[in-house]
């Protein structure tokens, strides 16, 4: 079968193929749950919003199920269901803080030495000021900018080196700040010393927290960070690596201090991965508030994409975060007017104030469509993106459950803060946030390498926070009985490719078929329906999308308009409760594309909806003695959902 061969290139990136030349089989992928986007007190915004003490170690401990102290409440909290993996991704823009390069073997600077270093610096300062005059004052703005753009001031005095300074810490630091070039000059003790320079301060501590909590097979941690580019709007990416601590300490995270341009980030990832022999993945988020830029078809200079650009982008950004606290970016009712479930957790409050207008460059579905067009002209699809989801919580505590949501930040972590507009600039309050999301990963083992490989081959999917187990396979030969097979995944892997994979030109007379299995969250709500979302490029170069109901609970029949009646609701708004008396615990099917055209490029992804359950604002409203139905503009209930990574058909 031709499409079998297409699976392999995708796997090579994961290096798994070298271990298992036969590719993956059902026996060796398990479902692991995790969060790839979480901030701690190391992020300055989190710190400013009240999280002064939930550091990376706290975050990892909480995620793996150990008890920690809640940053605001001061009470002991513990996750009932631990995560399987976590990447703490603090803003890289803060890691310059205290990063000092000092030569190995250099004795820790004594307080006296630091005091001494102060003298020449101060002298220099005065000297500079004397000759400065008017011209220098004019130049000041330029100088300031140069400093801001440049790397961290070379060789700031080694603040952390002051081990043993004890009581004198305050005085020492007062001396350390202006000491400026002390570190660099102190390094001038011979080449050997400088060659084994080591990095000190925040970044190594951060890496150590990940290293300490990584327990292969039980709980996986990733060293990661957020590249917080505000070029034209929210163009943020989280980046994480499968590298161990020793190698992660051989770089500092690439941040917008280095460049605002994602192209420069990818360059740096190229160089650093080659230099250290490590893998990275970068994942854009909140395209919904990117102000028309995240999936715009132009580069940072406004020029149309080239094949080279497209290759670099998809090499490093093979996925997108579809759902998180600041909303879901799947699509928008204005972009998908025929999709009755498009209006889900829409969030349009821009970070610098105001409301974003939805454009095709802001949402995942339109990006996937645009990718088909770009591939037709460039030969490479820069938006061949898989789907994942994360919280982006700033509390250090990864929480994505409606009934146990700790808020975006420490200041909105209590019910009373729900209806309060939190961030002065934002057109949003605590109840506008979403209690989500989570990523499910089909991986061979719970290790850094295996999980990162699953991200690379896009055998992952995103949810609005729920833990629906979702399997999707694409091929040409699935039969109805495969959906009933005792070992469904085995039939899936044998007969085609898993989510994230590729199908090439269909055998004569065959149509794309999908084998789908969705199982409810063990502790959550039943399932309403499974939908297939197809996007395609017609022969005139125009894109189209269609939503198909593939399988659903109960005995509902589609109406004359082709629509399936709603599943109903069991939510009791007076109690904030629901029952699983409607919906199905499991939905499986083999779906065949009724509109298949073998000459048209297409993608297919699966969306699974739960029955309605109370939204987090309902629990808060009840706690505050308010009526959940009228407490807020946001609905009192929601249908949580999972979004699979797509399977692409390329003739």
């Amino acid at each position, binding site marked *: 079968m031709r499409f079998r061969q297409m699976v392999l290139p995708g796997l090579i990136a994961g290096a798994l193929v070298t271990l298992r030349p036969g590719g993956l089989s059902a026996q060796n992928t398990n479902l692991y749950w995790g969060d790839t986007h979480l901030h701690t007190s190391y992020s300055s915004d989190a710190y400013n919003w009240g999280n002064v003490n939930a550091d990376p170690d706290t975050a990892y401990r909480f995620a793996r199920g150990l008890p920690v102290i809640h940053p605001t409440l001061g009470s002991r909290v513990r996750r009932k269901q631990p995560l399987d993996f976590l990447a703490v991704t603090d803003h890289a823009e803060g890691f310059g803080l205290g990063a000092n390069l000092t030569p190995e073997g250099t004795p820790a600077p004594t307080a006296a030495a630091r005091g001494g270093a102060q003298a020449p610096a101060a002298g220099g300062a005065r*000297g500079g000021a004397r000759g400065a005059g008017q011209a220098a004052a004019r130049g000041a703005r330029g100088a300031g900018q140069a*400093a801001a753009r440049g790397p961290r001031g070379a060789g700031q005095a080694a603040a952390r080196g002051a081990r043993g300074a004890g009581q004198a810490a305050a005085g020492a630091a007062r001396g350390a700040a202006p000491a400026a070039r002390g570190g660099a000059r102190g390094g001038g003790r011979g080449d050997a010393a400088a060659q084994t320079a*080591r990095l000190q301060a925040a970044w190594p501590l951060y890496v150590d927290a990940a290293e300490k909590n990584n327990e292969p097979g039980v709980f996986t941690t990733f060293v990661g960070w957020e590249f917080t580019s505000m070029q034209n709007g929210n163009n943020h990416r989280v980046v994480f690596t499968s590298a161990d601590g020793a190698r992660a300490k051989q770089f500092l995270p690439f941040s917008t201090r280095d460049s605002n341009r994602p192209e420069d980030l990818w360059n740096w990832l190229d160089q650093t991965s080659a230099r250290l022999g490590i893998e990275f993945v970068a994942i854009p988020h909140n395209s919904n508030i990117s102000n028309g830029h995240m999936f715009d078809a132009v580069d940072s200079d406004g020029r149309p994409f080239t094949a080279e650009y497209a290759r670099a982008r998809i090499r490093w950004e093979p996925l997108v975060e579809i759902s998180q606290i600041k909303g879901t970016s799947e699509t928008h009712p204005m972009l998908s007017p025929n999709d009755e479930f498009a209006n889900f957790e829409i969030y349009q409050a821009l970070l610098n104030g105001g409301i974003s207008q939805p454009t095709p460059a802001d949402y995942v579905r339109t990006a996937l469509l645009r990718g088909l067009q770009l591939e037709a002209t460039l030969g490479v699809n820069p938006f061949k993106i898989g789907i994942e989801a994360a919280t982006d919580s700033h509390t250090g505590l990864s929480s994505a459950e409606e009934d146990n949501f700790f808020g975006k930040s420490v200041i909105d972590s209590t019910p009373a803060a729900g209806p309060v507009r939190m961030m002065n600039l934002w057109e949003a309050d605590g109840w506008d946030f979403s209690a989500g999301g989570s990523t499910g990963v089909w991986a061979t083992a719970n290790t850094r390498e295996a999980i990162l490989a699953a991200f690379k081959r896009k055998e992952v999917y995103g949810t609005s926070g729920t833990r629906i187990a979702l399997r999707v396979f694409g091929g040409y030969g699935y039969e109805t009985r495969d959906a009933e097979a005792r070992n469904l995944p085995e039939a899936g892997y044998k007969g085609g490719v898993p989510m994230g994979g590729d199908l090439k030109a269909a055998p004569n007379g065959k149509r794309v078929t999908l084998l789908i299995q969705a199982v409810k969250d063990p502790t959550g709500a039943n399932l309403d329906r499974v939908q297939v979302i197809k996007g395609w490029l017609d022969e005139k170069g125009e894109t189209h999308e269609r939503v198909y109901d593939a399988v659903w609970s109960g005995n509902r029949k589609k109406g004359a308009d082709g629509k399936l009646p709603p599943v109903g609701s069991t939510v009791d708004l007076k109690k904030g409760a629901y029952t699983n008396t409607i919906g199905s615990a499991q939905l499986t099917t083999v779906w065949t594309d009724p509109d298949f055209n073998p000459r048209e490029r297409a993608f297919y992804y699966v969306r699974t909806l739960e029955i309605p359950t109370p939204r987090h604002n309902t629990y808060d409203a009840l706690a505050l003695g308010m009526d959940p139905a009228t407490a807020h503009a946001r609905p009192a209930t929601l249908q949580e959902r999972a979004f699979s990574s797509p399977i692409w058909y390329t003739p």
Partner: protein
Amino acid sequence: MISDSGSGQRSGGWLAAGLREPLVHFVLIGGLVFAAFHLLNASPAADSRTIVVDRNAIITFMQYRSNAFEGELFGKQFDNLSEEQRKALVDQYVREEALYREALGMGLDREDYIIRQRLVQKLEFLVDDTAAEAPPGDTELVDFYQKNQTDYVEPPVYTFTHVFFDAEKRGAENARAAASQMLVTLNRNHTPFDAASSLGDRPLFFQNYVDRTRDFVVSHMGEPLTAALDHVEPSSAVWRGPYESPYGWHLILLTERRSGRLPPLEEIRQRVAEDYERGANDRARRKAVDELVSKYRVRVNGFSVGTTP
């Protein structure tokens, strides 16, 4: 700034107070060291109008510029540069250094909130480092372990496999009847653990549960079924049931059940020691910061805030 108002407070006996200040000590000692250094070396680096560039300075500069820290590699890279390339690097370095000194000279580092925050955070890291306490002794550790036992209690764990009869597919009554019928066969044939995966209906979640915690089993099987497992004798030969879960009926081969327990300290010594140090470090950090802050007298002008800290 706080230090300004502080020195204003002390205007009466500033000399005496100042001599007790660590900062003053640093400046004085530092000044002496600097003077000695200057006399001995007559280093041109001490001249504010001279920028000394050597191999190490450039290698350090290259590493910061590329956010990559591997001195040896950059040393090699530097050694392989052409003179022209070196000149370009030196030019960049000199430009940055000169502008940096000019900016400092003009006091551009003052009243800059980013710099202010960076310094505060650097000091916090410094305090962390200096506040870290020695590892706990045996007595402290035992005491800590006993006070925090609830953190270390391990929940009960279960090992079993099951044959599932799907109520949604068969209807609840039929599922139960089929399960009852199968139970006889399983026990008559001494059906082993591994055979379960080919019998009954496809389980929703897991086929086998190995050393799974009680909470986990409850999340998949429901409380009543899990409670039933608490009252049977584990055995690798006897299938039990049928038990009802939210999804249908189950026949279960429970091969092991371990009760909840508190592991002895020896078994989890490292974890307890880490927890102890974590707590101790938190306290030490808070204390160190409080001490630093308490060295300042605060005078609030023009409005009232109750009692000053």
